Each structure stands twice: as C-alpha cells, then as structure tokens.
C-alpha cells in the first residue's frame, strides 16, 4: 500500500500549457521530468447499485490501457489500495477478486451487493516526476484529460494532481501550495467520478430503496399518497433489469419490498385514491408479489447456507451438499419463471397503467396529508396493541403471524409519512417497533423454513440418488431452526411489553395528533 495525498486541480481550458504551470510552481532546485509517453486509459468506476462504496467514502477505479490494467481503491483521506486487474467480468461480488488487501477492504462494505460499472470515461494521462537535487522522485504530477466513453470531451476539464511519494509529503504539499497560488489552475471541487457522473446526467447516491419523498402537512392526502406510490414505482422499475440479469439478490429483495409497500399503501390508504383504482390494481400487485416469493425464499436459504452448514454438529457440511445443489437447481427454474413474468405483457401493462394513473392530475381538496398520516398510523398502532395484548403462551402461531403483518403495515405507514414527522421521535418509534418486528420475523421465518425443509426433503426423495446422510443433515438443520423458533416465541412477551410501554405509546401519540384513541 502506498501512502498518498493527492492534491487535485482543474486546468483552465484557455490557460497556459500544463508543463508551464508546473514549472512555475516548483520550488528551487526541483525539476520536473516527463515519465514516458502519454497513455490512453479506459476508466471504469465500480460501485454497488445502492452506492455502498460512495457512502463509505470510497472510490474504486479500474484503469485499463495497453500495458496496465489495475484497480485503485481510494478512501476519503487519500489512502489508496491497488491491485492488478485480471479477467473479472463485472458485475460480480467483491469475492470474485483474488485474496489480498483490496478484497479485504471491499468485502465488508459491499457484503451481498455486487460491484458494477457506474461510470466510464476515456482518459489521456501524462505523468511527470518531480525530482529533488539528488534526482530522486519526490512526487508525481499527473495531467488527465477525460472524455465520456463514446462521446467527445467537451464539458470535462483537464485535471492536474500532485501525489507525494511516501516520506516526501512536505515537498508535495509545497508544490501543491505553489500551484494553488499559480494562475491557470483552480483547486478541484469535485472528484473525477463526480465530473463524469455529472456529465452523464447522474449524481452519486441517485438510487436508494428508501422512500425519500418530501411531503408537507397541508398537501392533499391524495397528492401525498401518489408521491409515495410514484417513488415506490420508480424503485420497483429500477430493480427490474438487475433482477432479470441476476446481478445480486438485493435487486429482487428491493423490488419485492417496493411491491409490498405499494400493496400496503393501497390497502391502508387507497380510499383517498379515485374510486375503483384500489380494486383495479391490488390484485395485479398481489400477483407480482406472489411470482417473486418462491425465489426469494430460496435466496434466503442460499445466502445463509454457509453459516447453516458451518453450524452443523452431528452432520458434516459435505453431507448437506445435495441440499445445496437442490436449492441452486430449484432456483434456476424459479428464476426462469420470474424472468418470464417480468418480461410479460401483464407486467409491462401493470407498470404502465399504474404510472399513468399516478400521474393523472389530482383535485386539490379532501383531507390533508397530515390528517391521513395521523389517522392511519393511529389505527394501525391501535390494531397492533389490541391484537398483541390478547396473545398468550397458548395462542396459535397464526395469531403471531397476523400480528407480524399488522406490525409491517404500521412500519410502512411510518416510512411513507416520515417526512411529516419530527425525525427524532420518528426514529425512536421505528426502533420501538423494530424490536417487536425482529422477534416476530424470526418466529415466522423459522416456522416457514421448517415447513419448507420438510417439503424440500419430500421433493428430493422423489429424485434419484439422494443419500440418507443429506436428509439426516437436513433434519439436524430443522431441529436447530426449531430451537431458534422456540427462543423467539419465549422472547415475544418481553418484546411486546416494551412496545406497549407508556414511553413508546407517548411517542406514537406525538406522531398522531388528533387521531381517535
């Protein structure tokens, strides 16, 4: 790893040639010498679809030229990790990189999200060495002219950067300081990636699965709801290509969440939409939710498979391997079904008609967004309290499943109308609810998984060559899941008591002024 501290400048387009600018900025006894001929590089920046590297202050750049192909990961403080690039076809998980510092730095940040190209440019790079009186290189000066891949270079200014050789920071700082005072250059405000994205009409962080709409308390409820629904439709559509290409499992996850939120919004607030609209669309969104369920269930297994296999005591991970193969094969079949659905006329018609419906001008009357939010959150909250209060240790699992759904509805309502609420109270209310949701989620997931393991085992039995050891290993898996289920069931009473506590109720009352009690 090389310690570096780049000082970036933008060269004025009509200014002096870079070499003259540099010469004027060098301290006495220092010289600049060109290092090789100008190189043309293809630059590709990589990040996850939800910008995890950007959020962590990291930039991953792949530079490819006639003789070089390498990755450079730069952190906000200028530290750089580099690695040679060899034959990876992006998008791919960071795990596709060979073991080394680059992979070690990336994996915890990107986790289950794939790295994919987010911007491309062609760069002409000229390098100069800055030499001291011993003819020792103390810094590198790099002049980079960039153009968007496939377009001309207009709009992208040339950049000049100063990079210290380790141990010569003082000298590099001095050169950078002199450059700052020299004419013809200005400190670069944006990074090269920001420049390229801006020229391509994008900006970092332009995708998030969060419902980041800005509602106002006085706006008509229908307008507010339509804004939320449009945002959800954007998220849904943004995730379709990645789901079809199987870039990573989170595309489908985000798509499903957008569908579930849409269904809940229609169910809980649909009465403010024009008559007939909820009925016309709720069935179609249910269909869309249903076609995505089998594959998501398999993804949950496959994502947790390594941990499950490693946790076996009696059986060995190798004995569980037929189960893994079965899941992977099964997933391929389900993926084909899903792709068919997402390319179907039915799906295309649904999103088209839904967007048209949401874009239709809404009359500016009726109840306000604040009134709708207070009323629906209040109702959903009361429902959770009422249904949770009657659950005893003897209640059937269905009562907990039902409560889980009501909790989810309450959570979605909080998210839809978050921009109307005090952020601190909102966050705490979500935290109160999340504790209960986590417990109920664990309980239901365990129940579903046990049921599915039995079902998968029965299906595997009908196929040839399933060793008994695989079924025994699956049995052990089921028993571990059963233990987790029991733990979640025992924890429920405490979690619900926390949620129903006076402090939490006060917070919900603050979020729902005027709602019926």
């Amino acid at each position, binding site marked *: 790893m090389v310690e570096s501290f780049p000082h970036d400048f933008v060269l004025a387009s009509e200014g002096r040639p870079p070499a003259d600018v540099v010469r004027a900025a060098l301290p006495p006894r220092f010289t600049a010498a060109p290092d090789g001929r100008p190189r043309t590089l293809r630059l590709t920046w990589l990040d996850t679809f939800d910008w995890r590297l950007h959020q962590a202050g990291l930039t991953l750049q792949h530079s490819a030229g006639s003789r070089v192909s390498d990755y450079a990961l730069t952190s906000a403080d200028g530290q750089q990790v580099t690695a040679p690039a060899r034959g990876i076809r992006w998008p791919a998980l960071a795990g596709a990189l060979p073991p080394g510092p680059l992979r070690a730095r990336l994996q915890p940040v990107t986790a289950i999200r794939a790295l994919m190209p987010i911007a491309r440019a062609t760069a002409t790079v000229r390098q100069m060495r800055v030499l001291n009186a*011993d003819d020792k290189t103390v810094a590198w000066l790099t002049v980079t002219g960039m153009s968007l891949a496939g377009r001309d270079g207009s709009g992208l200014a040339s950049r000049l950067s100063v990079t210290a050789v380790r*141990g010569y920071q003082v000298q590099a700082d001095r050169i950078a300081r002199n450059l700052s005072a020299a004419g013809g250059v200005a400190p670069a405000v944006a990074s090269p990636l920001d420049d390229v994205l801006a020229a391509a009409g994008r900006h970092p962080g332009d995708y998030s699965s969060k419902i980041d709409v800005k509602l106002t308390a006085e706006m008509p409820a229908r307008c507010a709801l339509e804004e939320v629904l449009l945002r959800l439709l954007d998220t849904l559509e943004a995730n379709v290509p990645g789901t079809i290409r199987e870039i990573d499992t989170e595309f489908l996850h985000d798509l499903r969440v957008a569908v579930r939120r849409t269904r809940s919004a229609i169910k809980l607030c649909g009465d403010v939409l024009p008559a007939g609209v909820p009925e016309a669309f709720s069935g179609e969104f249910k269909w869309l939710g249903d076609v995505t369920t089998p594959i998501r269930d398999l993804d949950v297994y496959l994502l947790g498979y390594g941990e499950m296999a490693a946790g076996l005591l009696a059986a060995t991970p190798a004995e569980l391997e037929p189960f893994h193969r079965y899941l992977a094969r099964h997933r391929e079949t389900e993926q084909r079904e899903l792709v068919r659905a997402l390319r179907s006329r039915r799906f295309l018609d649904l999103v088209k008609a839904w967007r048209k419906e949401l874009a239709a001008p809404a009359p500016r009357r009726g109840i306000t967004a604040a009134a709708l939010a207070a009323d629906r959150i209040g109702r959903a909250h009361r429902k959770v309290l009422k249904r949770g209060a009657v659950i005893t240790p003897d209640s059937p699992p269905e009562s907990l499943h039902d409560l889980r759904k009501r909790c989810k509805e309450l959570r979605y309502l909080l998210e839809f109308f978050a921009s109307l609420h005090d952020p601190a109270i909102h966050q705490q209310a979500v935290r109160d609810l999340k504790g209960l949701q986590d417990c109920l989620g664990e309980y239901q997931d365990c129940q579903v998984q046990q049921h599915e393991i039995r079902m998968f085992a029965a299906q595997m039995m009908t196929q040839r060559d399933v060793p008994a050891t695989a079924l025994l290993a699956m049995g052990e898996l089921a028993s571990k899941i059963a233990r987790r289920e029991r733990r979640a069931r025992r924890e429920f009473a405490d979690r619900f008591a926390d949620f129903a506590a006076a402090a939490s109720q006060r917070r919900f009352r603050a979020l729902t002024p005027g709602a019926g009690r």
Partner: protein
Amino acid sequence: MKILATYNIKGGVGKTSTAVNIGHLAARDGLRVLLWDLDPQGAASFLLRVRPRVKGGGKALIKGRRELDAAIKGTDFDRLDLLPADFTYRNLDLILDSTKKPTERLDRLLRPLADEYDLIVLDCPPSISLLSESVLHAADILLVPLIPTTLSVRTLDQLSDFIAGFDGHKPQVLAFCSMIDRRKRLHREIAGQLPEERPDVARTVIPALSLIERMSVERAPVTAFAPRSAAARQYAALWAEVAERGL
C-alpha cells in the same frame, strides 16, 4: 510477511548490491517490499537516492511502530520502500542493549508491518554484534554472500553453528558465491564445488562485474538500469532460488 537479511561478518562482499537488487526484483514481481538500510555507511540509501537521515535517529526507530512508519521513504520503484540509514546506527548495539530482550527487539518491531509489506529486506553492517544477533533472530532467511576462499567457507560454518544453537525460530541460511573473478582458479574451483557439496549454498553465482559497480554511478539497481545484462540475469536467478525456498 517474510524477513530476508543479507549478512556477512566481512565488508565489501556484495551485501548491499544483493539487498538492493533482490528488493527491486521482489517488488517487480508484485511483492510489497521494505528495505531497511541498517548500515550507518548508508550505501543502500545512496543507491536508492534517499538521504541517510532518520528523525530521532536509531534510538527513535527502536522505540516503536509510529517512528518506523514516519521514517519510511518511497523509492523510485513501485512497491519498493526504504527505511534509510542514519549515522546513529553505529550505536544500535548500545541502543538495543538498553531494551528488554534485545535479541528479540528487531523481530517485535518488524512483525506489525505484516499488513503493509510482504517482504522486508535487512541490509546489515559487516560485524558480529548484538545488532547482527537481533537480525539473525528476526530473519526467515539469511542470504550470505561469500567470496570463494577457504576462510570464507570456514566463516559460513561458524555462522551455521551459531544459528544451530538458537532456541525456537532459526533462519534458513542460503549462501552464494559473490564477486567471482573468473580469472582466478581458486574462485572457479570453489564456486563450482560448493553448491555441489552443500545444500546451503545457492547454485547461482554473482560474478564481479563492472556493471554492478556502476550501480553507485547510476544510483539504481542494476536490475532496473540494465535489466537485460548478465548481472541482472544472475540476480534474477538468485532471486528465483530464494523464492524457491519459500519466499
């Protein structure tokens, strides 16, 4: 991370040339290399154009990681960094002697660099001292240049015996014939026989070539300024033998 030391009790046998060229070759092969010029004469620092000066001197370095980090200089070659020499290194024996477990001190100082470097090359001053003992304890491999004379072979035996007496970690010794003068029969004979007779002597020999001496004029590794020369090829062969032994 591995630690390689070029060591010989005698001076002028090619330790520094070997350290600089091997360091450069390892970096060229993709390893992240730190070369520590432990010789107060600062020849390796001179060859890599770095001024032989360390803030706080040897005393500061022996204290800890932070001082060590601050003293490291990048060379003109990718992945090759240098910890320069300092004239105060002449007192390193005394400085080490004032620490607890002086023979383990160097090892303890260098091991934390494992996340930053794959190879550390120690260019040792010609002596037998507390410093060289500390180097012997830290190193994974000792690269020993030998001028092919009977006395040199005797010194190698003494070194091997000394290391054999260590408790726990012992460095692997790899000697090689250095500064071979083909005109001298004794050189030719010993350089031919030794690798045959002793597994701790490399097959590669480094001849006395004017191009190697020219390193001090070019102030660069011969493997960098004359990469296709016979001298560079011999160093590459030596590096390959070192790599074969687990580096």
